[in-house]
């Protein structure tokens, strides 16, 4: 009986020890569980924090991209503006060059016209200007005789024998231009001509001192390389109308006064001798 009681007591003792170990094991498991929970919470917090930071970075980058895009747009706009300005400058340069060329032509023409007081030389200079600066092949300079009211050719270039030496004031295109004092420009392409018609000039420029017509420059044919009249040609026509007239008139007066002076001088010399 005692043996049996001692055996039961031993078993109880063993059971209690196993139970105690179980309790300790459970306690350890609970601790481990607590630790893991803490770690999970830490990780969750970390993940949360990382997401916010990424959002901030992304937002910053988006803003930077927007700024750069705006800058890019602004630079593109400025580039286009500069390009346009460049084009404008290039066009302006061409215009200025052309204007420069025109002014050089006008300056040289007027300088040469007033460089002499010799009548024949004045006519020669007008012929040179019309041929070299305007590009005419066949043309004439006619002067008005106020006594007969007739226009007579005093200088010409390239004209054939069929050209009339004189024209009545008011007769035909040249006579009408002389009478009215208005320049005449034939309509249409000046190069598209079958032949030269001396009664139908391409251009008639009355030579005027104020409103007084002293003659006419008539152009019948242009040089083969001259395709059309340009702006400077019209400027030259206008310049010739006034300056060529004064150059011819003053050189004519000078020649006459020179002749008269020589005659008077001869008389004076004769009187002195007597």
């Amino acid at each position: 009986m005692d043996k049996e009681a001692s055996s039961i007591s031993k078993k109880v003792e063993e059971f209690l020890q196993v139970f105690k170990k179980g309790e300790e094991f459970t306690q350890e498991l609970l601790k481990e569980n607590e630790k893991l929970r803490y770690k999970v919470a830490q990780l969750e917090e970390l993940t949360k924090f990382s997401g916010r930071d990424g959002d901030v970075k992304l937002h910053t980058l988006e803003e930077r991209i927007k700024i750069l895009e705006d800058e890019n747009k602004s630079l593109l706009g400025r580039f286009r503006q500069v390009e346009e300005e460049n084009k404008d400058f290039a066009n302006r340069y061409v215009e200025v060059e052309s204007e420069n060329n025109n002014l050089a032509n006008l300056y040289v023409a007027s300088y040469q016209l007033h460089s002499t007081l010799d009548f024949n030389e004045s006519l020669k200079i007008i012929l040179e200007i019309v041929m070299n600066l305007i590009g005419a092949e066949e043309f004439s300079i006619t002067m008005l005789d106020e006594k007969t009211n007739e226009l007579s050719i005093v200088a010409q270039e390239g004209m054939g024998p069929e050209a009339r030496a004189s024209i009545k004031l008011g007769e035909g295109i040249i006579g009408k231009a002389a009478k009215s004092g208005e320049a005449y420009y034939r309509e249409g392409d000046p190069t598209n001509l079958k032949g030269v018609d001396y009664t139908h000039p391409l251009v008639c420029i009355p030579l005027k001192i104020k409103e007084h017509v002293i003659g006419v420059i008539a152009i019948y044919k242009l040089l083969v390389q001259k395709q059309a009249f340009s702006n400077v040609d019209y400027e030259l026509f206008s310049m010739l109308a006034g300056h060529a007239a004064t150059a011819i008139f003053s050189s004519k007066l000078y020649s006459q006064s020179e002749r008269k002076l020589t005659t008077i001088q001869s008389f004076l010399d004769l009187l002195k001798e007597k």
Partner: protein
Amino acid sequence: MPDYNFLVVEDSPTMRQLISFALKRIPGSRIVEANDGIDALKKLSAQKFDVILTDINMPIMDGLKLVSMVRNDPAHKTIPIIIITTEGAEEDRKRGLALGANAYIAKPIQTADLLTVVNEILGNKS
């Protein structure tokens, strides 16, 4: 900046002045004018020129004769020659270039065109 000596051969004072006017726009340009071919040959023997610009229709000696004589003269045969003339037909151009002219410009001239040709001949970029 190099100096350039130009010989302008023209019987027309108007054209001489106009061509000289244009050439003066080239920095370092010095211009000598001659009335005809004979006058040009005299001036060629007196000094060196970088370019000769000549008309064709001139009294005493015309431009084509001048081109031919310059090209046959060992002392001057390499000088570039530009013909500036009212003779604008294609056969005239061919004849002028065949004689040895480097360029052929028909009148009326445009300053910009003349300067382009002269600068090309001088090897200038401007």
